[in-house]
């Protein structure tokens, strides 16, 4: 858990404690900046006030470039999941999420959890939205999402399959082209449905049972659609693939898909790195 001394600190810490105890993992707190007795005292007070917590807690204080320090510490301590408090809407002035969180989501060696509505009280999550578009990472993401849903007791899971408009590749001009495009979409829906049920059948049974699983295909801009969808259905958590590794220098530029989500977080976002386990 990376933390800064913001007004949300207490809520962020509480969320982290709850999460790590539910998952049964140990918790590392990492503050990038100078260690002062005052800060230490405030932080201790918060930790002691928490009603529950994981078995082991470690706090690390280190100065330096936030992105570098955090990625380094993640590697060093073999971190599975990095938690970050985040602001919902990106702004030029509020640069926290703007650059640091963005860089971290790209560079962190592990999965990243962005929290926008941490709360001191325990608010049970009810609805999880998971991306399911055609990608090699998707299967891992879906499985991780189901594991997370079981640990956190989330009953409703919606798999959102975003299909790029370019796959339809028909411009609707008149009745004829409208018919053609509607037909093509139906075909794509069928194909994607088959693909999804194949993935779902690969998920261990005990993870799937007792869950209310739905799927929704959306034709539209990838990344944007799922973010907007999560807002509409008032999802409590959105689980997405991390960025796929690209070989070419030019494509290292931050991808547009994730951009849409990060610039205006619809809800808490969990970004799954394929190598890591939650």
């Amino acid at each position, binding site marked *: 858990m990376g933390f800064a001394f913001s007004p949300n600190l207490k809520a962020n810490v509480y969320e982290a404690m709850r999460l790590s105890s539910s998952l049964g993992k140990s918790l590392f707190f990492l503050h990038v900046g100078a260690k002062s007795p005052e800060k230490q005292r405030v932080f201790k007070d918060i930790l002691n006030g928490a009603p529950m917590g994981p078995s082991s807690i470690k706090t690390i204080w280190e100065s330096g470039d936030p992105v570098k320090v955090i990625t380094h510490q993640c590697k060093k301590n073999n971190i599975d999941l990095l938690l970050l408090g985040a602001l919902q809407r990106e702004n030029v002035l509020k640069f926290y999420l703007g650059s640091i969180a963005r860089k971290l989501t790209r560079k962190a060696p592990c999965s990243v959890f962005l929290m926008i509505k941490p709360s001191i009280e325990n608010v049970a999550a009810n609805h999880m939205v998971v991306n399911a578009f055609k990608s090699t990472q998707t299967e891992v993401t879906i499985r991780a999402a189901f594991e997370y849903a079981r640990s956190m007791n989330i009953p409703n899971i919606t798999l959102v399959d975003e299909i790029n408009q370019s796959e339809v590749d028909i*411009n*609707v*001009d*008149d*009745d004829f*082209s*409208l*018919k053609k*495009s*509607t037909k093509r*979409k139906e075909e794509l*829906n069928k194909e994607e449905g088959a693909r999804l049920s194949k993935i779902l059948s690969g998920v261990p049974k005990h993870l799937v049972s007792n869950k209310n699983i*739905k*799927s*929704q*295909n*959306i*034709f*539209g*801009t990838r990344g*944007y*659609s799922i973010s*907007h*969808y999560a*807002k*509409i259905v008032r999802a409590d958590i959105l689980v997405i693939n991390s960025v796929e590794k690209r070989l070419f220098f030019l494509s290292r530029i931050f991808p547009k898909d994730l951009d*849409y989500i990060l*610039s205006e977080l619809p809800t808490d976002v969990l970004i799954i790195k394929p190598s890591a386990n939650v």
Partner: protein
Amino acid sequence: MSSSYYLKEFFGDLPKNIFSGFVVSLVALPLALGLAIASDAPPISGVIASIVGGVICSIFGGSKLTITGPGNGLVVVLLFSINTLGEGNLYQGYLFTLAAVVFSGVLMFLFGLFRLGALSEFFPSSALQGMLAAIGIGILAKQAHVMIGITEIKGSTIEVLSKIPDSFLFILLNPTRENLIPAFIGIVSFFILIFYSKLRNPLFHLIPAPMWVIIFAISLFYYLEVFVLSGSGLSADLLISLPDNLLANLPFPDFSIITTKRFLAAVISITLIASIESLLSIKAVDKLDPEKRRSNVNKDLKALGLATFISGLIGGLNVVTVIARSSVNVNNGGSNKSSNFFHAIFLIGFVLIFQNQIEKIALPALAAILVYTGYKLAAPDNFIRILRVGKEQAAIYLITLFITIYGGIMTGIGFGIVFTFVFHVIINKNFFIFSRNFFKPNVLMYLEQESGNYYISVENFCSFLNFYKLKRKIGEIPENQHAIIDFSLCDFVDHTVMEDLSDYQRTFNRKGGVFEIIGLDSHSADTQHPFAIRKSLPSNDFFNFQNNLTKRQVSLKQLASILNWRYSPENSFITSKLEAFTYFKTKTLNYQYNELSSLENSFKIVDVSYSEGAFIAKDNLLATFMVIDLKYSIPKFVLDRDFILSTFSEFSNYSEINLNRFPDFSKRFYLAGSNKSKIKNLFDSKLIFFFESHSYYRIESSGNEILIKGKSRVLSINEIKSLLSFSRELLNLLNNKYL
């Protein structure tokens, strides 16, 4: 369906389309001549545009029912271009303008090629209306003088407008024969146009109003020539002159100034107006199509571009899609592109055969048509309609109107866009809502997998600036489906969007789908949210006059309480499924009021406002209808007085049924339907006797509902009472038969 099926249908519909093409050509000829003259171009140039447009667009175009030819919106632009490019020399200016027309044809073709049909959607609706009104005033100002025989008035729109009283005064003070005859022709023509739609005589309506004007002008000329010794008294400059040899003397555009700035400006404004006018017309004609087809606007733009290019090369004006002529086409049974083609062929025929007669048409008669056109564009009721939407819309309208009159079309529409945006920022008290979200997508659409409904959610803001994004998504929904638009995440919805959405609502209704708008309820309660939203909601769409009911409304209310029925005097959207009746197939339903309905909902009497045709060929109608809701289904049929008295296209799917057993009935009534044996079974002697013994109503069955229409106007209380007893007896007869 195979291609041979289409071919068969095409040839089957050919007679209808030839007829419709003929009627359209009767309107097109006077308009083509008039629009060309109003642009200071040779009269024949308008006819060339019509002919080229008709031939090219019917072959390459994408829409089925549109008629193409010279457009009224372009008059002002072309007039300006001919006068400025020629620097006073009108013929030279005309040749330069032809070059500009050729270039604008290329541009329009490119617009179509690059799928920029959405171009017109970037203009806020009130600003667009203001611009069109300014064009209307521009046409009206100049032609009002010509209408009373004074041709030498020149100057800016304002100057010309201010001189109109002087011109009338001049005629009154100098009542010579030479002055009075042209003024007489013009003013009588103008009255023909105004009172045409008031006279509901179907025989009179077989010939369109502009043709009556032409017939009047030509016959008056011959009367004066033949019976009055001193001749017509019309000087040559008040008559049309056509080139002696039509085919040999085609002018060729002069390309020598194509590198100058003013030429470029002319090309751009011509293209802009031509595209806007065409796109608006195509959209409007789609709403009239009885077969509810959707036009391919980009294909249309390409065809119009090509037609304009060719037309310019041989001396014709711009080719655009024109609404008035297209609506005449729809009303006369045109069903496919061939009617546009035949209208061109008939025009060629007219020009070649009746060249001498055409040269006898007095300019004041044509000017009267143009004054009427201009008036329709700038009509005060347009302004009142916009004022009802909101004061800020009226302000945008007026600003655009005045700037267009003073500074030209490009400046006018430019300022209109800027002011609209400024108003939006002021209303929201927030600039960031626009700046932050302008480039972001804001629309999500998906097919809900559980319900099968299409769901669209819009966030941030939705105004003319980003409306195309929403439109593209809506466009992907088949109109016979259920669509839900949710604005609950959207902070601001402007008037342009609301207006267009209500059009979508209509289209979906027409095609059997459902189009719902949700999530705006909270907006009206929130003061931060703009006027336009609340004002644009259908139920508040009209002024509320109900504070004091009219006499008729009071009696209706009394009638309702005697019958123990419900009565609501308010204007509202149409509540019954009137679209299902063939009577409304080619008509646009506007709103209903004075709804009187029985508690169990089997009877409903309602006054309906609907319109037929569009623009100058538009008739606004008000009539009282009775709708009977049946608990069972009966065959679909139409029972009318006589075939000739009804519009032709109404019966396209039905064939006439003669009941041999009742020759008297068949003589008096026209009965049509598709299922012959069932209808014959339905019309037994009791029912026949009932119809024969009662006063005449037009009766139509849509299967589960019966529509009864009395006169083509609102009925009086007593007429409503007899309509009521008629309906009750009819329902009794049917109930006895079916229950």
